[in-house]
Each structure stands twice: as C-alpha cells, then as structure tokens.
C-alpha cells in the first residue's frame, strides 16, 4: 500500500516510471473428502493478492469450479491446523484447508 502510494507520487511528481509493486501471499490450500473430488485435486500452492480472506480464497476456487459454491454452507475452514473464521486474513506461508462435515470414528 505504502509502496503503491510512493510509486504514484513519484510518477505524478517526477514523471518517473516505477514498476507497481504488488505484494503477493503464497499459501498452501488443501481439500478433503467430497471437496477434493469436486475440485479435482487435494492440494496446491497459490499466490494471492495482499490481504485476501479465507472467504475470498474459497471464491477463487468457486469461480474455477462453479459446483463448489453449493458446498459453501457445509464447509468449515482451517488455517494452520486450527478451525478459522471465514473473514480470517491470510499471511504468507499459511496452510488453509477446506473441510466437509467430518465422519471419523
């Protein structure tokens, strides 16, 4: 954010071309059970824009695989092996998993 503002300032004031710096967040994303079948794989690493939430991450996959959207209300998410709220903001290196209802035992 600060770098973006700085770049804009330099561009306007001094007509300097400064390449926009967009920070990306690399996260590992896991799918289990029926969700794995729906998206077609169990895990991948993904580069996200800064300040993406788990909800927005799910939307990225739902855009790729529209069938996924219907499972939204029966999925919980985890971040780094802990159940997490959908508005959780992701940080570089986070491991996010989308978990359907559990059926162990």
């Amino acid at each position: 954010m600060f770098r973006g503002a700085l770049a804009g300032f330099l561009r306007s004031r001094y007509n300097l071309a400064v390449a926009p710096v967009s920070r990306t967040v690399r996260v590992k994303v896991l799918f289990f059970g029926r969700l794995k079948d729906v998206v077609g794989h169990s895990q991948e690493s993904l580069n996200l824009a800064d300040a993406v939430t788990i909800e927005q991450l799910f939307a990225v996959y739902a855009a790729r695989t529209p069938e996924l959207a219907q499972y939204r209300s029966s999925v919980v998410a985890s971040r780094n092996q802990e159940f997490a709220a959908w508005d959780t903001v992701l940080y570089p290196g986070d491991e996010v998993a989308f978990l359907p209802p559990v059926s162990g035992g």
Partner: protein
Amino acid sequence: MAPPFHHEDIFQLVREPIDLRALIEHVRAPGDGAIVTFDGFVRNQSHNRATLYLDYEAYESMALVKMREIAAQLHEKYGIHRVAIVHRLGHLEIGETSVFIAVSAPHRAAAFDACRFAIDTLKRTVPIWKKEYFEDGAVWADGELPPAPLATPRAKPAS
C-alpha cells in the same frame, strides 16, 4: 499447570490393524483401578445398504492436533490418568476396528465419562472422513460440521 503423565498419552493415525491389547496395557498403571475402552469397527450395512468396505482419509497433521486437544480436555475435566486414541486410515474391511480409545483412571466413573466424551468429541471435531463402498457405487458418509469461529475477534482499537 499441566496435569501429570501427558507425555504418556498415545495419539496415532495408522494404516495397519490396531493392536487393542497393547493400547490397553499401555494405559494400565498401578495407581489406576479402571480402564474404559471404545472400539469402533466397520458395520456391514449403512442405511440398509450392504457395505463392501470403507476407505478413511484424514487431514493428518490437524487430526493429531485435535486428538491431543481431546486428551488435554480429558485430563482437565475428568482427572484421568492416561489416554490412547488411535484411528486407522485407508481401506478397512467389515468388522475391522477403525477407532480405538482407552482411558485409565483411579475410579470407573471418570473413565466412563472421559471415554464417552472422547469418542463424541472425536466424531465432531477431528478431520477424518470415510467413504462407503457399496455394490452399486461409493459415497462420502454424512458427517458433522465441526464448530468453527464465526468471525475473527476484532482488533483492539489503538489507545
């Protein structure tokens, strides 16, 4: 203030048959007077359809974290001595044990209560899934949606 003997608890995800006897012996100690176990094994039918076999998968790293949390709760709530929680993954035939829990305590009431709490909590919170195979296809079993936080706590305003 950690209750004693946590380091003697067992949490495992295994792909081979579970050795029930060894786990019972593990939790048994001279200061105890009761062991309660839960042996969950594969049923031959589901909703009146004949089951051929089951296949279990887990989010293994998180499942182990959640199993540890259950054990911590058992020590805290019931004052039990030792606990062993083992879940099997992969292909399981009818009659094979999928989950085994053994809890030891000085007296039976705590052991019964703790064992019941452990299996109930495992079924609700540990990320493990089972796929049921039938003559005419396979389905992921209906499960329980674990309780998750609804929203992240709001950051404290700067003072």
